[in-house]
């Protein structure tokens, strides 16, 4: 009990957030659960991208390609080989992870800038690469997936709580949430322990890290593999939720969407990707529906935003965030929290590191 009481507030916050997400489908429309599931999908992919960019300092602008790989692996296994879709998710993740790891090997030789260039080109080429092996991928027809029927226990459990049995969208949401919880927990452990420290060391200074004995090549390729694994699972879950995969479902805009989410949420943080995923997913849907209803925005801006779609907003957000808040929302919040704490509790003494005594107890 004492340990519970001395848990940092952060842990309580996590608990609240988890409970929020578990309870969410019971209070919103069924199809909205489907949308939140897709936001969580992006959050998972962004978590992977964050491990790569934020923790190991390698820049990839092509993670949409890994999502496509995961989505198509699952789709082909489920559609052609009649495998249970839920089984295909870890398979898709592992396959994508291995390929990402292999991709990470030549990536070692590329400087950060060139890696960005190469992965950007990969993102642009992805749809045409998907179209090529048409017998396997269905080509431009795409692959239509049967929407999964929730198992009876889930339907009953949900009915017991809300009165209506669980729908497909809600079931998809819970499957996605389960994976998100597992993957976020794994990522949190990763960055806390040795691998994470090694990665951060090499992000902050490769030469110094190498001099300290960190296996640069190993950790960099590991980071690539892990981030690809996350993207692969995200892609697979994406297919589960949307029921359809096709070449135009994975345009370069997706890779940019992932990047925006990573940056806006906050690099090198665990909660960042969650916020980033929510932001990146809902922005295009809401921007041309919600904005026109806001009468305080001048008509010129509304029509420009409407016609330009989310592109103008994305671009402006990316630029503004990088200039004013390069650590994203999480960075802003942390900075604000730190400043608040400093004001309330004072700054530790420079030499001894001791906090000044509390005013009340002095």
């Amino acid at each position, binding site marked *: 009990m004492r340990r519970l009481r001395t848990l940092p507030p952060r842990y309580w916050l996590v608990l609240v957030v988890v409970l929020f997400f578990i309870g969410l489908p019971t209070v919103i429309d069924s199809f909205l659960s489907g949308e939140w599931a897709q936001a969580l999908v992006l959050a998972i992919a962004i978590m992977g991208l964050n491990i790569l960019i934020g923790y190991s300092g390698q*820049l990839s602008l092509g993670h949409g390609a890994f999502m496509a790989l995961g989505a198509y692996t699952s789709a082909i296994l489920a559609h052609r080989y009649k495998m249970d879709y839920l089984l295909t998710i870890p398979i898709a993740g592992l396959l994508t992870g291995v390929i990402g790891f292999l991709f990470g090997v030549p990536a070692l030789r590329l400087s950060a800038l*060139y890696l960005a*260039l190469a992965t950007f080109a990969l993102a642009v080429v992805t749809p045409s690469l998907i179209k090529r092996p048409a017998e396997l991928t269905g080509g431009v027809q795409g692959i239509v997936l049967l929407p999964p029927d929730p198992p009876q226990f889930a339907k009953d459990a949900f009915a017991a709580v809300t009165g209506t049995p669980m729908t497909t969208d809600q079931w998809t949401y819970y499957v996605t949430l389960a994976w998100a919880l597992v993957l976020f927990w794994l990522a949190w452990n990763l960055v806390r322990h040795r691998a994470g420290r090694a990665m951060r060391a090499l992000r902050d200074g490769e030469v110094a890290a190498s001099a300290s004995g960190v296996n640069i090549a190993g950790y960099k390729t590991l980071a690539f593999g892990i981030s690809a694994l996350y993207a692969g699972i995200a892609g697979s879950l994406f297919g589960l939720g949307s029921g359809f995969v096709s070449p135009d479902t994975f345009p370069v805009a997706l890779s940019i969407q992932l990047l925006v989410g990573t*940056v806006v949420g906050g690099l090198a943080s665990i909660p960042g990707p969650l916020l980033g995923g929510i932001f990146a997913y809902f922005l295009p849907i809401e921007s041309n529906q919600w904005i026109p209803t806001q009468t305080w925005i001048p008509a010129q801006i509304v029509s420009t935003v409407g016609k330009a779609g989310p592109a103008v907003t994305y*671009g*402006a957000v990316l*630029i503004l965030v990088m*200039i004013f808040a390069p650590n994203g929302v999480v960075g802003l919040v942390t900075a604000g929290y730190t400043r608040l704490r400093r004001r309330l509790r004072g700054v530790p003494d420079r030499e001894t590191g001791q906090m000044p005594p509390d005013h009340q107890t002095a």
Partner: protein
Amino acid sequence: MQEFLQQVISGVASGGIFASLALALVLIYNAMGLVNFAQGEMAMMATFIAFTLITRGVSYWIAFPVTLAIAFAGGIAIQRIVIRPVERAPLLTLVIITLGLATLLNGLAGAIFGYVPRSFPSPFSVQTVDILGAFFSFRDLGVITVSAAVLLLIYLLLQRTTVGLTMRAAAHHAEASRLLGVRVSWMLALGWGLASAVGAVSGIMVAPIILLEPNMMQTIIIYAFAAAVLGGIESPLGAVIGGLIVGVTVNLAGAYLPFVGGDLQLAVALAIIIGVLVLKPNGLLGRPTVRRV
């Protein structure tokens, strides 16, 4: 044989287009060690500005230099407003900002001008020249000639003028240059302005061929990346040579390699990028860089 020659010549023609944009990429890299993902969109915007002037009745030969001036000023403005606040930020930040700029400009162009393709005037005629049975259009020839001229000017600027020397010094040894009194920040702005103007030239030259629309540079930029990387990202001459090689390779691979075929042309460019970066990262004409500890 004639078909092969035609494939090569068509490749040279599209290569010229890639080279013209790659020159702008190389200029920015020379100025600040950064690849500008927004170069294509900036070029496209400049071309739309020229288009607006021309449709308002301004003669082509006046609109051209006016657009170049506007593009130059625009490049400087972008550097001052968007790049300078994060000058000393890590590379990642800068790359993301240029990516954001690209997205923003593309969306803006679409919103203002719409997406319907438009024709754009060219000073070169639509006639062709016959080379041993293969045909080269004057417009394509014009792109290459103008690119060569721009290349010469860039070379003269960078290698033979004090301004060019100062720019290169500021890019490679910022701290030392500052100590010597160089206004590093303004040198960077100058680099952006020049690159923007070179991009504008590229856009104006190629728009008659690829049609003016907001998405016109979206895939050209990838081919231009391949060209710059292949030629050596610091070398303007490399950009031009790289562009021609990329253009020819893409065509020949598409025409003669059945597993590539016509629909994987862009994948060939990707393969070139990856191949060069893995095997010879400095490209054909680049000098090996040494990383100091």
